[in-house]
């Protein structure tokens, strides 16, 4: 089997704030295969962004602190790298697209400069080379007559166009991995679909491995081969997309799936929503962090945190209960 491009193992990141220690990422592990696509799903605040910001060296330190784990990129641990080394990986080997294209581009610099500066720095490319590549990518992501728009400023583009520019910019250095952190959340629904399609297309054309972060299971379903479900800083379930949708194993995944609107559902049914709120990550009660909202919880769920366990080929879940039989799993 091929080596993963990126292998995150037991990542722990905490924020030491005045209110207490925020356990933002609490032992997250995953593998991203070359050319693969992994979706990370979870409610707002569950640690999706902090996960990738941690191994890219982008969390503010202090208050943030990476307290454990490894993040192997092509076998080298990103967490052990000096800031200078890690900087050479960012944007060059691993690129990121952020949520809000309206604010993610510098308003006072031309698109041409913002797109080309990374390639000139990482690859030592000349301005002409970088501009040629940028124009080629702008065309590929569907910016009409890019030569005309190239020297415009970000505010002269619409939101969807800016996100296309962000995608083109991320691909400038031919990265091995692309992290898209809620790339469609700030966009209109029709534009969302176009952007997802574009990410798919660029993945097929360039072979870049994609991590797609979202709180919308519907989004990952169409794009990702594998899915990681996060809750309160931990991975609660991981599986290939098909099996996960067909047969969710964690009560949280189960509830998430029930809360997706379906076209074939009866009209009179109200859309399901998960009762309660996600826990704050400072005061962790004992046991499983989903227990206050879980319809399947048994006694053990309130005393002991379930570990992420492999229970079938390619399927991992962190739950004491087998939700199909509603019985406690044998351990």
């Amino acid at each position, binding site marked *: 089997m091929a080596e993963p491009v990126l292998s995150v193992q037991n990542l722990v990141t905490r924020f030491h704030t005045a209110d207490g220690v925020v356990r933002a990422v609490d032992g997250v592990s995953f593998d991203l295969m070359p050319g693969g696509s992994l979706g990370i799903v979870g409610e707002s605040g569950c640690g999706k962004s902090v996960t990738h910001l941690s191994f*890219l060296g*982008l969390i503010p330190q202090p208050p943030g602190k990476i307290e454990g784990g490894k993040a192997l990129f092509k076998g080298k641990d990103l967490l052990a790298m000096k800031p200078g080394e890690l*900087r*050479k*990986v*960012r*944007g*060059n080997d691993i*690129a*990121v697209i*952020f949520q*809000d294209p309206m*604010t*993610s*581009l*510098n*308003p*006072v*610099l*031309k698109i041409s400069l913002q797109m080309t*500066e*990374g390639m000139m*720095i*990482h690859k030592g490319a000349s301005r002409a080379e970088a501009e040629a590549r940028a124009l080629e990518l702008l065309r590929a992501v569907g910016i009409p007559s890019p030569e005309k728009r190239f020297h415009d*400023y970000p*505010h002269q583009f619409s939101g969807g166009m800016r996100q296309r520019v*962000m995608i083109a*910019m991320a691909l400038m250095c031919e990265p091995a991995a692309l992290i898209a952190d809620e790339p469609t959340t700030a966009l209109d629904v029709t534009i969302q679909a176009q952007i997802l399609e574009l990410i798919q297309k660029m993945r097929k054309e360039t072979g870049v491995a994609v991590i797609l972060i979202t709180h919308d299971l519907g989004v990952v379903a169409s794009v990702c081969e594998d899915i990681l479900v996060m809750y309160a800083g931990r991975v609660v379930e991981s599986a290939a997309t098909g099996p996960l949708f067909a047969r969710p194993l964690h009560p949280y995944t189960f509830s998430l799936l029930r809360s997706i609107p379906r076209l074939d559902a009866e009209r009179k049914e109200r859309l399901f929503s998960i009762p309660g709120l996600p826990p704050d990550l400072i005061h962790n009660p004992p046991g499983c962090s989903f227990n206050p909202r879980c319809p399947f919880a048994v006694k053990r769920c309130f005393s002991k945190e379930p570990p992420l366990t492999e229970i079938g080929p390619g399927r991992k879940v962190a739950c004491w209960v087998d939700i199909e039989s509603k019985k406690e799993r044998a351990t």
Partner: protein
Amino acid sequence: MLRYVARRLLTAIPVLWIIVTITFFMMRLAPGGPFSRERVMPAEVQKMIEERYHLDEPLVKQYFRYMGNLLRGDLGPSFRYKDRSVNEIIAAGLPTTLQLGSLALLFALLVGIPAGCLAAFRQNSAVDYAAMSFSMVGVSVPNFVVLSTLIYFFAVKLKILTVSGWGRWDQMICPVVALGLMYSAYIARLSRAGMLEVIRQDFIRTARAKGLPERLVIMGAAILTGSLIIETISGVPGIGREFVNSALNRDYTLTIGTVILYSGFLIIFNLAVDIVYAFLDPRIVYE
């Protein structure tokens, strides 16, 4: 852009006219006059002086006389300094004031902006605390105290600078630094606040995620911060304020002359600031 500048300059004319008119009448309405002293003057002398300066005419007539002269560029005779016109007084003082003012501002920008930016990037570090305490001192200590301290050490004790005078660099350093220090303290605080606002924005994270060296990340932030600072810098007080002392002397013509000059400066300065602002921030478009 040119049309915008022309329009701004045209609108400045009625503004100046209103300023002159208000100043003119306010000066006359205030109790006391240029020649009222403790010592009582003989009535004839008083009358002669008033005639000479047309103070015996009705106020409205005085006003039109003054405005007529003003249109010809004549600011009138000084009431205080006998035999000198306001034009002469201003012409004598202006170059020095302008030099002092602009050198002090230059010094302030060169010291204040880097200090403020550094403090923002090393927020809550020793550098930050040092820069901010220093600027607190700069804002609160009056500049004549700074000036005398500088002169005492560098001119009297160490004898590397000159105590007074203007024109050679060793005479200029002390006053420029003394005046500039106060502005720089202001500008440092402004830049720090502006920079902190800017570096919290998403595009700074994007710049880091692209793997840009910190130097370039800071530069990207600094341009936007620059436009924030420019936006507020027109509020830095005191540029040319030393002119207005003559108001206390009841020297009617000199006061109005300096007020006109000061207002003209402010108008041009603000216009320049707006133009630089548009230059730094492409989202600003004037038409």
